[in-house]
């Protein structure tokens, strides 16, 4: 199974200011498949954040099409995009990722709540499991100000993953961390990709991150180039580990997925969301659950 998690088709982006017109992206073609960890590198100002914002439905391309998890989001309205972001896309930014007025747990719950599919209790359950997955058990009720930079990034990662998105987009996720915390966070990212099969796209100007990647890209002059594979992966990652053991993680994940399944089935029976969308998500969930059950058996 290698479905396409994210597809950019000939995406162009022109920024117009009063004085000039900057063409930042000049025709980006990119396909990220399920389970990949793609790192996109490029110098400052090359358009990495621009690319990410378009891929995540935060901004519109001037030309071209964007498909996330099989859904073409190019022509969607702002509100439709918000709903898509809640369910299908996770974001991790460089810093100040969290809402200061929410605890770690509530930060992770927020996107789940915004989907409108989960009750408070369900969202809290999923979120606390997700925090356990990223190794922050016991920190649920702390506010962002009471967490270290690295811990904050872990919360952000938990938040991005909680709704089970098709793709998680990260913009310099370790850009403001010290080396040690950065290594730990990157270890977590790699591990989540491998253990959960979570599709992740990281943009960065730090070439070291390419060592994590299953695929590496360069962006330059508004165009994207793939670097041929063949490099040693992840050897310098010292701590390829989250907060739980591999078997433990799988059972955690299984219980999370079951909560989601329940919520989705309820949503489907009540007709809260578009039945087509729910149908597809239900199928995907059931597939993941049966796979996990087989692994655990």
């Amino acid at each position, binding site marked *: 199974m290698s479905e396409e998690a994210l597809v950019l088709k000939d995406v162009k982006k022109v920024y117009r200011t009063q004085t000039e017109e900057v063409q930042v992206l000049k025709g980006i073609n990119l396909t990220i498949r399920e389970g990949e960890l793609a790192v996109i590198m490029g110098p400052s100002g090359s358009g990495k954040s621009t690319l990410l914002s378009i891929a995540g439905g935060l901004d519109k391309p001037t030309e071209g099409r964007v498909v996330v998890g099989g859904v073409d989001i190019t022509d969607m309205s702002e509100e439709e995009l918000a709903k898509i972001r809640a369910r299908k896309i996770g974001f991790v930014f460089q810093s100040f990722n969290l809402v200061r007025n*929410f605890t770690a747990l509530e930060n992770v719950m*927020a996107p789940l709540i915004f989907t409108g599919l989960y009750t408070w209790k369900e969202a809290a359950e999923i979120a606390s499991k997700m925090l356990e997955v990223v190794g922050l058990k016991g920190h649920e009720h702390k506010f962002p100000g009471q967490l270290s930079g690295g811990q904050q990034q872990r919360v952000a990662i938990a938040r991005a993953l909680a709704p089970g998105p098709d793709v998680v987009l990260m913009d310099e996720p370790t850009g403001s961390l010290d080396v040690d915390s950065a290594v730990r966070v990157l270890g977590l990212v790699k591990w989540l990709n491998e253990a959960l099969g979570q599709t992740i796209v990281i943009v960065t100007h730090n070439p070291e991150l390419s060592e994590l990647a299953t695929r590496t890209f360069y962006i330059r002059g508004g165009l994207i180039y793939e670097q041929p594979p063949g490099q040693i992966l992840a050897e310098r990652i010292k701590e390829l580990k989250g907060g739980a053991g591999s078997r433990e993680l799988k059972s955690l994940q299984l219980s999370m997925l079951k909560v989601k399944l329940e919520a989705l089935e309820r949503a489907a029976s009540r007709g809260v969301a578009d039945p087509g969308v729910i149908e597809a998500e239900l199928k995907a969930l059931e597939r993941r659950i049966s796979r996990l059950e087989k692994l655990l058996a």
Partner: protein
Amino acid sequence: MSVLKLALKFVERDILFKKLVAALTILAIASGVAAFISLRILGIGSRTAAMQIVEQVLPGEVLVYGQGIYDVSEDVVRDLEKLPGVEKVTPAILVTGYIGRNSVFVLGVRPEDLKNIVSRYVAGSPFTGLSGPYAIADLGLAEKLSLKVGDKVAVKPPFGGSFRQYEVVAIAEVTMKIEEIAAAGGYIVLPLREAQNLLGRPGYVSMAVVKVAEGVDPVAMKNLISLIYPGSRVMLREEVIGVVFKVMSLIESLLLTTTMIGIMVAVFGTVSTITSTVREHQREIAIMRANGALRRDVALIFMLEALVYGVAGGLLGVVFGILGAQVGINIVASFGFLNPPLILDVPSLVLGFLMATGLGVLSSVYPVWRATSIRPVEVLKSE
């Protein structure tokens, strides 16, 4: 509604994080509401008091005056009594006079009408004859001139140098405060004949108060009396009350202007608080939008915050308003004319509360619009 709960958490922390600003905002709203409520309560109390006084004091629905100050003949009183539909006619004299250098109201009534103007005897007992050198002093006057029962007072009419002496037989609370509502000075109540003699106008009174029989229209009675006595001035009790109320509403409208200023301050305070909250959380709003929050989810948060300020300000305003009204009532009562009751007029309280919540939410419209206009792509900026 989990979104509501999430929004409530946000608001709760926000208010706790900036205690002082939140407290000041609530206080601003509360003071506006309190001004409104206390003035309403005071106004209603004063009107009620005034109405009670006028109704108590005027033992009839129609008042008949002469052209001058006291030229209604007692014959007229008798004639009026014979008119069909008239139940009772009360003649009275009400003029200003002097005791020493102090101006006083001289009130002449028949002993049987005393019950209509005296609400309570503090000391002594009333006179019983139509004449005789006896007087009842108003409580305020007695205090001012330190009069006691048994004292002799010399009362001068408004003109001329003559005076007469009367013995104070009682100290009482006098409620005859019709037209001279705002005038200073106390009352000295004399038997009707004595008052006529003092003024040198035997057989004349300054007004006759006509009580109509049951089922008779006071307006018809007024018209009838005007027809028979074209030279007289005839007023309905309601018109007297109307005059009192007109003065009161003038005062009230001046005070309401003050209230409006208070409310504008409240609105301004709320707008600026919510605006600065939105600015403070600009990045977090963008983050939440990136995480799938709809515009209405963002709107909910900041409207809720405004609503909390409005509700808290409204409740506090109601309490302050009632306290303020009590203070106002004490001040008015200390002038000695009116003793307004504290009427907790529920519509006013509810209106004040709703005004606070409504204004709170209304004040948030512009900042909320700003908040919902923050584009999610802004999370990528200003890092």
